[in-house]
């Protein structure tokens, strides 16, 4: 996974955000999405540790130890932002005020199950992810298409502990975009530049269908 691949996923994901939406961006690739939000689109970025209107990472020398995001990075506060306690933060999240949440994953499957907090020999923790996938209106999983060892991350059935059951709405990788139909089942809507339908089929264990109007060369490096 090159940095370029991560940015490519973030850039495509940023196009999903709508003006005025409250959005929570998880650690890793999702946090990069903030760098690609199109001009004219104002998004309120909420971080579950208790801050809204999170701005870019603080420039060196201007860090405030009491102004960080949920990944513990020093950040800036944009106009309109404020601070609040954790109970209030999760009232926003469960109460339906967060329109979109974007998070990384270890596994995701065709039923929309997400597993992202524990694997054998490595304890990470769900943080606020279980609350976010249950509470946000649209749940985006942003992930490399395959794990570092080449194994599938879009699996037939999640085998790791679930973060959410049936909660994933959209999957965006450096190779493809899948959207879940309201009646269930993911549809391959977009294939990134440099990849083919056959190639996607070969590296995706998750069950999906191909949209009749699937877009090839939909995004990716020019």
């Amino acid at each position, binding site marked *: 996974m090159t940095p370029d691949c991560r940015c490519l996923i973030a850039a495509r994901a940023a196009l999903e955000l709508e003006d005025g939406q409250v959005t929570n961006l998880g650690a890793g690739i999702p946090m990069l999405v903030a760098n690609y939000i199109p001009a004219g689109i104002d998004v309120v970025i909420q*971080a*579950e*540790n*208790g*801050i809204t209107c999170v701005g870019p990472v603080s420039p060196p020398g201007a860090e*405030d*130890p*009491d*102004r*960080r*995001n*949920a990944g*513990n990075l020093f950040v800036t506060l944009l106009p309109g932002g404020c*601070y*609040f*306690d*954790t*109970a209030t*933060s*999760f009232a926003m*999240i*469960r109460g339906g005020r967060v329109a979109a949440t974007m998070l990384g994953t270890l596994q995701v499957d065709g039923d929309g199950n997400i597993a992202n*907090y*524990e694997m054998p*020999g*490595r*304890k*990470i*923790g*769900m*943080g*606020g*992810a*279980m*609350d976010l996938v*249950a*509470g946000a209106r649209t749940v985006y999983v942003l992930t490399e298409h395959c794990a570092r060892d080449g194994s599938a991350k879009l699996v037939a059935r999640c085998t790791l*502990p*679930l*973060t*959410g*059951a*049936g909660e994933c709405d959209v999957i965006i990788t450096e190779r493809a975009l899948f959207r879940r139909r309201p009646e269930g089942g993911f549809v391959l809507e977009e294939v990134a530049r440099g990849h083919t339908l056959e190639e996607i089929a070969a590296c995706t264990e998750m069950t999906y269908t191909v949209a009749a109007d699937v877009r090839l060369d939909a995004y990716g490096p020019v």
Partner: protein
Amino acid sequence: MALNKMIPIDEAVARVESGMTLALGGFLSQGVPLTLIRALATRPVHDLAIWSNDGGYGDDGVVELVKAGMVRELHCCHVGYTPAVGRAVEAGDLELEWVPQGNLIEMLRCGGAGLGGFLTPVGVGTAVEEGHEKVTVDGRVYLWEKAVRADVAFVRAHAGDLVGNLCFRGTARNYNTTVATCADYVIAEVEHAYSVGELDPEKVHAPGVFVDAVVRADVSYCGVRR
């Protein structure tokens, strides 16, 4: 005077005894009561049950108590930044219970507010379900989560007065306002201490009624620069 709650830190942490339940404010390295945690780490105390957002950050925080062999069980939602905590769990030296963050704060909030528990949609269909009764309300399934009340709580505030009124700053507020309510004995470490009447009553985030003791925070901790 009875309204002066400022006491020496040794006296404050001596309230924590083996086998007790301890609740901690803080999030990674934001608003963590590190002065109290480090004072506690020198005490001959063991078998603690700790409720906290996380295992700490790097070598700082709960992980210090874990390394000192003082913790029997940890209830939290993240140990990704403290590999030593994960290793202690793998080695069988520490019991870990995963609690989703929003459920965790609400358990402590209910414990502080005299409530028995609450119904949450978070965790349905996951391993969190285990041991929880399910309740359906208006067609939606919820887990019945019980309240948690601690014996002692540690919080860290930006400013506090001698009666324990507390003000927080930025994202260091996080769990602290809630944790300040959820224990029988609440100790606040304050970065700046004020006399009674000096704090603007409109700016108080946690009323002193909840706080039993106030100690001075070491402001060199948590990367606090002044």
